[in-house]
């Protein structure tokens, strides 16, 4: 017995058959056992969570759905029908929430822009789309189409830009900011890591200045002070000024997020690209950025979500975005005292958009994972 350890041993290869795993190591039941009832602390937390859900969810559902009123002419009528939420206000003012003071008979133009926008977005997000190259050309000219559809001109009735409002305004500012700030942010990030001292210093100064100032301040500058700096007589559309400021603001954040991604790329990658004779922009575009941006996706999307929600700040400089419409409708004497309904409705609008962005980024991360993390 004692000698067995020192005996030379050998095994026939392939004598161990593949056995199924022991019970309860995979499947939904195992998941529940492991994650919800794995330890005494886990059991206690599960029970407490269930109890809290029991306290909150029924009341919420009653308020929002079962006891809610959607057809009514005023708050008094709502209260007379049921005790729950009074969705009649956002329902009656639905158009205003979406379009602000954009002329009623021209709402179709905003709707058409929205449809065209999704068509332009599709080839960007879906890289197996048929005829993707040709389709992307359309995506590139979409901003021009959108501009004329929204503002008018080219034979279409013109609309003052200050009339643009509601959720449409948030989407316009948000989308423009997102689309324009990504390339600008990438350039700033590359500039900050550049070997050229002047480029680097300028980029650092820009990023640090913009990051160090609240967005509201920049919006105030855009709405009031910019007139002092510009030559007298130049009129500069307010929404355009806001778009520029929002873009600059988020590009500074994007730059820092992308710089984080750039720093994670091993030096060897650039050396290999150099040794192969690729030029600076080629190695950036083909080797470094694809990897750096992939790492930066969570941070980039985080910045975009933040930017999109920050578009509600324009209410402070007198533009009527969806929150502005909400506030205005709350001061209507017929509807006074319904802030919950207005803000919940607005919250849902934003949540749908932001959550979609988050889901897409998760999908993108999974798709771009090429198994090199081991």
């Amino acid at each position, binding site marked *: 017995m004692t000698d067995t350890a020192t005996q030379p041993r050998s095994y026939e290869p392939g004598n161990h058959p593949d056995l199924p795993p022991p019970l309860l190591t995979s499947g939904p039941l195992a998941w529940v056992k492991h994650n919800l009832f794995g330890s005494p602390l886990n059991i206690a937390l599960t029970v407490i969570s269930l109890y809290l859900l029991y306290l909150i969810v029924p009341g919420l559902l009653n308020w929002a759905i079962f006891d809610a009123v959607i057809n009514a002419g005023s708050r008094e009528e709502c209260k007379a029908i049921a005790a729950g939420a009074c969705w009649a206000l956002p329902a009656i003012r639905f158009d205003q929430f979406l379009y602000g003071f954009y002329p009623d008979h021209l709402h179709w133009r905003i709707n058409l822009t929205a449809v065209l926008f999704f068509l332009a977005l599709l080839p960007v997000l879906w890289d197996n789309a048929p005829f993707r190259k040709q389709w992307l050309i359309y995506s590139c000219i979409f901003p021009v189409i959108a501009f004329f559809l929204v503002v008018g001109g080219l034979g279409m009735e013109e609309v003052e830009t200050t009339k643009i409002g509601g959720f449409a305004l948030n989407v316009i500012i948000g989308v423009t900011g997102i689309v324009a700030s990504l390339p600008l942010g990438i350039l700033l990030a590359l500039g900050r890591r550049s070997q050229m001292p002047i480029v680097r210093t300028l980029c650092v100064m820009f990023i640090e200045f913009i990051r160090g100032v609240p967005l509201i301040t920049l919006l105030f500058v855009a709405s009031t002070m910019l007139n002092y700096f510009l030559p007298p007589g130049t009129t500069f559309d307010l929404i355009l000024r806001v778009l520029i400021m929002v873009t600059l603001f988020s590009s500074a954040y994007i730059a820092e997020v992308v710089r984080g991604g750039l720093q994670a790329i*091993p030096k*060897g*990658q650039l*050396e*290999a690209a*150099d*040794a*192969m*004779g*690729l*030029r600076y922009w*080629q190695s950036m575009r*083909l*080797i470094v950025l*694809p*990897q750096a941006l*992939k790492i930066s996706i969570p941070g980039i999307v985080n910045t975009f979500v933040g930017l999109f929600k920050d578009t509600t700040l324009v209410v402070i400089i007198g533009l009527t975005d969806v929150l502005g419409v909400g506030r205005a409708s709350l001061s209507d004497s017929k509807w006074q005292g319904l802030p919950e309904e207005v803000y919940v409705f607005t919250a849902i609008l934003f949540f749908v958009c932001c959550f979609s962005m988050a889901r897409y980024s998760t999908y993108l991360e999974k798709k*771009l994972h*090429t*198994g*090199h*993390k*081991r």
Partner: protein
Amino acid sequence: MSEVAAAPQMQISDEVAIQMIGMHKWYGEFHVLKDINLTVNRGERIVICGPSGSGKSTMIRCINRLEEHQKGKIIVDNIELTHDVKNIAEIRREVGMVFQHFNLFPHLTVLENCTLAPIWVRKMPKKDAEEVAMEYLERVKIPEQADKYPGQLSGGQQQRVAIARSLCMNPRIMLFDEPTSALDPEMISEVLDVMVSLAESGMTMLCVTHEMGFARKVANRVIFMDGGEIIEENEPEEFFNNPQSARTQLFLSQILHH
């Protein structure tokens, strides 16, 4: 005896491939390379060895300007390395390099890794580049991995892909910077086999390596470096059997006898 060991005795042309004349390099205050003089003829295979920190990697990295030298001259393929970006680009097109840590591009497939430079630097049509790439992948014996990502391959396979990737540019000179140092023992020989067959095809090669078997088999010359200087330079048999300097003797005794 030495004639038998150095079996693939390809004819070495009189043409000079690389010439370093009085080359110096500093990292800040630190003098890394001191008065390097080296001439490599076309078709020559040179193995460079020495203790770590001796400057051997830095020296070969100067040849394709991954490192910049501060004094002296480097002439590659009759082009002098200066600050002229055009010269640097031209030299890099003709000089392939294989790194210790492979440096494959993880976001591209094996095939895309191989076709990238031919397509973007040589402006080769994609289809031709793919044909060339498959040829070289077959030569390093992994054509079946072409559509995989580098992260899915073993270390030895990755290094062979890296060699194929360099060869796809059809270089006239190949630099190897410790190509087997990051590999498991079982994988070293598969990479060395590829390098030996490359040497037999007459490629001009500079290899920083401690694989002495490889040096004996294919090298025309072995160079020993220490402290940023070339200490000794000789034919492999002479170098291993009859090292001249005490420093070389010590180094060889340490790597050969344990």
